[in-house]
């Protein structure tokens, strides 16, 4: 092995930094879509590295469903403070109040799909022309078809069958007025890569990812945390569990796993030995074979 060699994490990092710099160079009003989950935390970390010693030259956008884990909000506010950059919050509750979005009802109701309206409104209102996200191609089969630079029409929609070809590392960010791009710098990373990178860079992440005691119920094959929104069904009983979360979405739909992994090293080992995908605990993806594609076409993350 010669000394002019990058390992796979270094190569993925170099690629992601290159993509983020292309966004800032090609667009007038870019922003980072920040969910408080590990993937958007990694993207924000990469943006910091891309422009050091300057600050990240764009704001973070957070779509607040009103059903967040409180830990996520605390983490977000601390990070924004530390980075010294602007935070734009789009509120799903406000979209509902204004009649722009309608709350789902029924047993499996969630605000997951409602975020699409709030997200597109926030992009339009703030005239964002490129929204950087932390989606990865390995997460889901519709996402496997995504470009790094993904075009959205004036209604914010994705047309998976008619995407621009993307060759080498040459990215075409040209667009008409009112259209925008979604950009995915960590497209080529897997869940394992993200965890290994967090470990090697020692990136702070919300406490929810580490094993902790929590009240939960077992529903649809996952441990669902008890919150003020929980409605118990017949036969369900609340248990106190040592658990952690592999992904973070709304508190109403994000299930956790039983785990004793309370350090990054232990998490990496646990993920490496896992036999199910991280989104397996997300009820939003279980609705149908193509539920991600259907949401993405409309403008989802």
């Amino acid at each position, binding site marked *: *092995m010669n000394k*002019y*060699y*990058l*390992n*796979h994490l*270094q*190569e*993925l*990092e*170099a*690629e992601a*930094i*290159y993509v983020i*710099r*292309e966004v800032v*160079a090609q667009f007038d009003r870019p922003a980072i879509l920040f969910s408080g989950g590990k993937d958007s935390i990694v993207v924000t970390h990469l943006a*910091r*590295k*891309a*422009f*050091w*010693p*300057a*600050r990240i030259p764009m704001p973070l956008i957070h779509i607040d469903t009103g059903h967040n884990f409180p830990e996520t909000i605390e983490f977000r506010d601390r990070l924004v403070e530390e980075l010294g950059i602007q935070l734009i919050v789009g509120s799903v509750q406000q979209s509902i109040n204004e009649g722009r979005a309608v709350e789902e009802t029924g047993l499996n109701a969630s605000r997951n799909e409602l975020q699409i309206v709030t997200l597109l409104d926030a992009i339009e209102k703030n005239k964002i022309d490129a929204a950087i996200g932390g989606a990865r*191609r*390995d997460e*889901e*089969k*519709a996402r*496997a*078809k995504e470009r790094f630079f993904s075009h959205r029409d004036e209604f914010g929609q994705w047309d*998976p*069958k008619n*995407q*621009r*070809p*993307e*060759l*080498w*590392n*040459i990215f*075409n960010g*040209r*667009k*008409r007025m009112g259209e925008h791009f979604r950009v995915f710098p960590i*497209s*080529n990373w*897997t869940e*394992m*890569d993200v965890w290994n990178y967090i470990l090697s860079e020692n990136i702070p992440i919300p406490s929810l990812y580490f094993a902790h005691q929590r009240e939960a119920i077992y529903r649809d094959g996952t441990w669902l945390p008890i919150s003020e929104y929980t409605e118990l069904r017949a036969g369900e009983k609340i248990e106190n569990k040592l658990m952690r979360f592999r992904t973070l979405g709304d508190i109403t739909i994000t299930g956790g796993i039983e785990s004793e992994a309370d350090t990054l090293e232990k998490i990496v080992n646990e993920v490496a030995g*896992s*036999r*199910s*995908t991280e989104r*397996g605990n997300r009820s939003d993806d279980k609705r149908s*074979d*193509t539920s991600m*594609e*259907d949401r993405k076409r409309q403008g989802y993350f």
Partner: protein
Amino acid sequence: MELLRFTTAGSVDDGKSTLIGRLLYDSKSIFEDQIEAVRKSSERKGLQHVDLSLLTDGLRSEREQGITIDVAYRYFATPKRKFIIADTPGHIQYTRNMVTGASTANLALVLIDARHGVIEQTCRHSFIASLLQLPHIIVCVNKMDLVDYSEDVFNNIVEQYREFASKLSINDIRYIPISALKGDNVVNPSAHMPWYKGASLLDTLETLHIGSDYNHIDARFPVQTVIRPHDNEYHDYRGYAGRIAGGIFKTGDNIVALPSGLSSRIKSIDTFNGPVAEAFAPMSVSITLEDDIDIGRGDMIVAEDNQPTETQDLDVMLCWMRAKGPRPGAKYFIKHTSREVMGIIKEVVYKLDINTMEKITDDQNIKMNDMVRVKIRTVQPLMVDEYRKNRVTGSLILIDDTTNETVAAGTIQD
């Protein structure tokens, strides 16, 4: 752990998706819930077996039609390497997807149906791999189970392919008899083919030498953006941010900024984790210089004693990617590294018949999926290298100035 990117292509029925499904499954990169979902879908469709192609065909219309429409990217890792697969459809109208998949790959995996031997589709994919200068090809002769695992059948196909490949510019070609469906020689050696003494497919993917696939000779640094912090601590900091496209840069190196031609020396090579003494392709860094010279996006910092060609006249092999051919006299945005200039296609020199590799000189009409040798004239100069020397500084795309679509991709020829 190294990263190996490879591309696959295949016809509708030659088992490409099954092979990828098999690689993911046997290397334990597929999770139980994914297999469970595929099992359920297969049952719903009334299939007798678990259809592993459902793992890769993600879009609604792909699942309905049972074909792959777009390039899909797949990931798996073994303790030795991480792999990225660009999985491309093989139907005749999808040359552009094959070119796209090949553009970022080190290796092409070519599938041949043992019952049919070398067909047009095989040649087309191999030829594209050669045009895009992939250093390695692995030829998998698939469905060996359907020809009684016959050594003669395998040898005949290898002979057929060798004859065709003598016209390609690829040095490293390997041949493996497999059955993707039954798993022979995919991950584990086959008990059915004791006559085959070579390595299994996965073993080959894990061990083949890719260390010299990047250009570490010709120092090239296209500037993406300029970093100027404007705060007290870094008040006068002016860092040129970019990704090294070739060669090695060291602190103290004499450089020239192109196209201005102004010289300076490298003062520092910075990263968030601290300065480095040297940087090489494909690292992302920011470079500061001893002198305050005017450099911005689209400029290129290069070694003073090894410079690219600066020119407004380019010889290019184009792959046309849109349904409509070029309008007469149309101007295009030409994107090359971080530089974007206007240009026109001045002349069609010849078209390539992608199946026979023959040059066609009496047809100037460019259509979707055509490979054409053209002369391009640009308004401002580009700093270029031949594609076979450097895939970053030797490649470009054409963007239609009215629709903003990427209409063609090109490799720079000498």
